[in-house]
């Protein structure tokens, strides 16, 4: 259990790290930094699948550990990930985003919003896990 928690913390931090560079760009000057932002989004494209897998892995572990409440909290996101992956554009390779449409302002805005929301969720769950971790160790 403890080990699991440690793992979770590590991964969660990792994930928040991953997400950060994309979102930082929101605060930057839009005209000059816009392209940089897009580039980073593209880098992040490759991180999407690992993120989904890790999240799925956690859910499985929560399931094994019978952490029902945590699992319930994570299920909506899992469902969203599954939906997102099913409705991705036609592609022969794993991946979620299409380079020909990513420049569309709507899609770009959507991806960013998604990134922000997920960041918030991961942060919250990070603190929740931390709380669980501390709770277990304190007598």
């Amino acid at each position, binding site marked *: 259990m403890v080990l699991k928690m440690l793992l979770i913390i590590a991964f969660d931090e990792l994930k928040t790290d991953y997400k950060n560079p994309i979102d930082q760009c929101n605060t930057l000057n839009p005209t000059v930094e816009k*392209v940089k932002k897009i*580039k980073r989004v593209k880098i992040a494209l490759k991180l999407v699948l690992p993120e989904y897998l890790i999240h799925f892995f956690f859910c499985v572990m929560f399931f094994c550990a019978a952490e029902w409440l945590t699992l319930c909290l994570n299920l909506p996101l899992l469902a969203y990930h599954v939906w997102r992956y099913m409705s991705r554009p*036609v*592609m022969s390779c794993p991946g979620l985003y299409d380079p*020909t449409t990513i420049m*569309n302002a709507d899609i770009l805005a959507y991806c960013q919003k998604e990134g922000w929301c997920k960041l918030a969720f991961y942060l919250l769950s990070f603190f929740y896990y931390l709380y669980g971790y501390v709770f277990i160790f304190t007598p």
Partner: protein
Amino acid sequence: MSAPGSTNPSSSGSYSQSSTPNGGAAPPRQNGPAQTYPSMYASTGYYGPPPHQQSYPTIPAHSTSVPNKTSITNSAQSANYYENNHQQQHHVYSQQPFQQQQQHPPYATPGSYYGQQPYHGVPTTVQHPQQQQNPSLVPAPAVGPGAPLYPIVSYPSVPGSGQYGTLSPSQSTSTPGVMPIQMSAPLHQYNSSQPTSTPPVHPGYGGAPPSQMVPTVNGQGTTAHQHYDPSHQAPQSYDSYGRVTHSTGGPAADRPPSGTPSTSVHSSPGHHQGIYEIQIFKFQCLTLNVSPSFSLPYSGGETSSSTTGSASPLPNSYDSLEGGSYPDSMPPSNDMTNQAQSYSSYGYHTMQPAYRQGPASRSDSSPSHDLYGQPSYQQYSQPFPDLSQLSAALGGLSGVPELEVEALRPVNLLQERNLLPPRPLEAPEPNLSADLRKVNCSPQTFRCTLTSVPQTQALLNKARLPLGLLLHPFRDLQQLPVITSNTIVRCRSCRTYINPFVTFLDQRRWKCNLCYRVNDVPDEFMYNPVTRSYGEPHKRPEVQNATVEFIASSDYMLRPPQPAVYLFVLDVSHNAVEAGYLKYLCDSILENLDKLPGDTRTRIGFLTFDSTIHFYNLQEGLSQPQMLVVSDIDDVFIPSHDSLMVNLKESKELVKDLLTSLPAMFSQSRETHSALGPALQAAFKLMSPTGGRVTVFLTQLPTLGAGMLQSREDPNQRSSSKGVQHLGPATDFYKKLALDCSGQQIGVDLFLLSSQYADLTSLACMSKYSAGSIFYYPSFHHLHNPAQLEKFQRDLGRYLTRKIGFEAVMRIRCTKGLSIHTFHGNFFVRSTDLLSLANVNPDSAFAVQMSIEDSLADSSLACFQAALLYTSNKGKRRIRVHTLCLPVVNQLSDVYAGADVQAITCLLANMAIDRSISSSLSDARDALVNAVVDLVSAYKSNVSSLQQSGLVVPASMRLFPLYILALLKQRALRTGTSTRLDERVFAMCEFKTQPLQQLMRMVHPDLYRLDNMSDQGALHLNDTVVPQPPLLHLSAERVSRDGAFLMDCGNVFYLWIGKCCNEMFIRDVLGCPNYASIPPNMNHIPELETPLSERVRAFLDWLQDNRAFSSTIHVVRDDASAKSTFFLHLVEDRTDSASSYSEFLQHIQQQMSK
């Protein structure tokens, strides 16, 4: 090309290398860009080893021809800079790309993103074992094109980096004393401030008084415009200049014919329309009668490119200095032995038309040069200040109140039934001062949905109209100023090209109209090549024309400009042989072989495929073409590297041989499979070293190898109204291929001649993302379908000979606060404002959706600039720049007054297509209906003060519901009617790429009655009378049995002959004795000598005039089955599945009351 794959040069190394050639031959000025170039490589590291270095030394040589004719101060200054400052300068340059790094990432990332995909990474080693099948094969060298691809995939960022990373030398070396001061002068004072600042121009520059140049510039404008571009707005203004020229130039006794007032030019409607304000000047109303046979200094697109192509090799530096636009006006016979001569010939020639009435050949004008020399200029010098003061004074008055009031007149759609104007709708005039309007970009090239840009996004949302641009950037232009200069003057922060809408704060500084930065005017720009005088930068052609073309220097290239390379990929399976296209295609290519755009470097190749792939060795020296068959389609390789793409000039006989024998070669083919995917892979490998154009002819669904497709269409579902499936591609093979092609500057054009379902949805991707074009000939058969065959032949004729630009990119910049939302068209979007176009052709258009990010309150003008950087077929790097300027308004009523209903319809069509692909067709249709509902309710609640019942819209938008209804009945978007999936998808592709005029004719055809045409309002062009019958509503009630009606659907004309049609018309026009004897499949109008026939043909020719692809004509009899296609286009009527116009309006009203 032989540059070794060395690693990136260190900046210092390349620097010294570059400086050597410069020190020798090139003027020292060139060193600025020279440094930039290699240092960019070093600092970015994106561009691999390709042959840039080699290219680099060659380029200064070319620019050496651009002479040191500029000021002495300039060269001295830059020399100085070179010697002393280069160390420091070097720093500056290497930083530059960093600050403006935007371009690089988008180039590199897509490449790397896709570069990971393993599919084209055919290991070259594997190639060898496969060659045993073909004894004639040359063993492929180990340096196959597959393996070393990855490092190069970097989307050769030829232009982008060039555009950004380079600073023009004189800009960077400009005098430090000129500080960029932010002036608070608002932009709209442009009119008044500019002319006032003109008179006290530094007299110290150059020998000639500044005002000399005026007449010349405008004189040129006059000559070019008068006859050839009647719809252009600008001519009138030029006219006025021309008049000025005349009135003062009068005293010169040796030009007797000059003063003849003639009105012939005014016969075109565009001119009348343009007159409004200029008339106020009332300068001696002399109109110029340029004889139509006079060869203009600016000629058509084709010629203009050949112009410079031929001009560039000339060692004569004045071509380039003069702006390159006018070399055509130089009499070829006229030896330019000294400078003075050539100059006077320039100035003189451009004015010539003003003085001549009859057809003037160039040669006879040359001897008279000495007569009109320098002195005559000075006589023209006075009027300009007057004119500018006048126009400046008038600038404030030009509110165009009448136009606005008319556009805002509320129209109750339920009551008014006659909405159509008598003549096809023109683009609305932006509400600008006359000064700006006369230089604004032609609406045919650049059009905005709202000619008055709303100030804020909130206002835009309130108006419920889309904001966007419709662009036709590479259109064949009748006149185009081409400018060659060492420095292309651009804003230092946003890299906008200098344009007519910038503000000159004083002699040495100009303020960018997009980002408002104050820039220095480089020394070279002070010099006006047209009049060779100093000190009037605002009279340069760049600042006088909204559409200009620059000859770009080496800064704008990453590799030497590629030659024109054409590869034809032909389907020779059994199905193709059955359809019989091969013979006609080969004939057409043979016929146009000499007209293929290109120069001596042009290369050509052929590749055919069925279940195997056949290459053709056309190496010079062979006695006959040699066919190489590669049957391993899973792992395609190129059997021979040098001999498959051959120089057209050297191997012309072999190519001809091949084309003559090709149709017979496969006539016995039994092979039914088609391996399109592997053939495309082979084409990609063949072309990737150079880039170019791949033309694919396909007759059936690809069934073998990579990219094979299945039939997805269920014929029973064709007419279901539930929704259309399979609008998205089945595989991303074609898209990935297209992106790779785009990265290697290969454009793929598709000709689909299929009678069966061929999954155009998936196939179209190969053209969509590589900026190609798509042609579709449903049910093509050389015997059974003569109409399609004729269309195919006509299209081919145009396709093979039309202009083409290679390795192009287009960037669209707009005033700070506006941003680009979405692009529509065929291209790959490389960054938010940059389109990558492997090929650009003159027939494709683009649409751009815009959004307003920040309020535009601090400026009264919004500007849009589209810059298209391309390599011409003569191997010249060119930049075509279009700038559009529009007023910013803060009132909703002004927004409506400036709404351009045609542009809005086209943009909505594009958006609807996107929607139907991403969501569903019914969604898209609902969105279109909602657009109308939204507009009507927004207008009702916000603007219309009258409490009228019914559907009230502003007059400017009165056709909007009609157009939307027409859109809903289009093949692309209709439901309920049986529509084959391929035809629907093709219609969608056309919506995305057709220019506005053409699209509007397809959506809402023009209907005319031909049998009772009167001469009222007829045009008199040259010697022919072109009648102008009024437009009719597209409703069966307007079509009567006793008439003959012409419907102009853009790419096809229908001439419908009623049962009781006047026999005289049938006899005189169709050459048939009576109605019954009209043949059922009549596809042409015979050339009869009767006046009626002549008139009809004159009218048809006039309609055809501005079209790229000539339209076919179908004579439709009332009782023929073809009649249904005619009636299908009557969009106001009810059909089985779609409502009539009045029903549609009622539906809208119901929706509103909900």
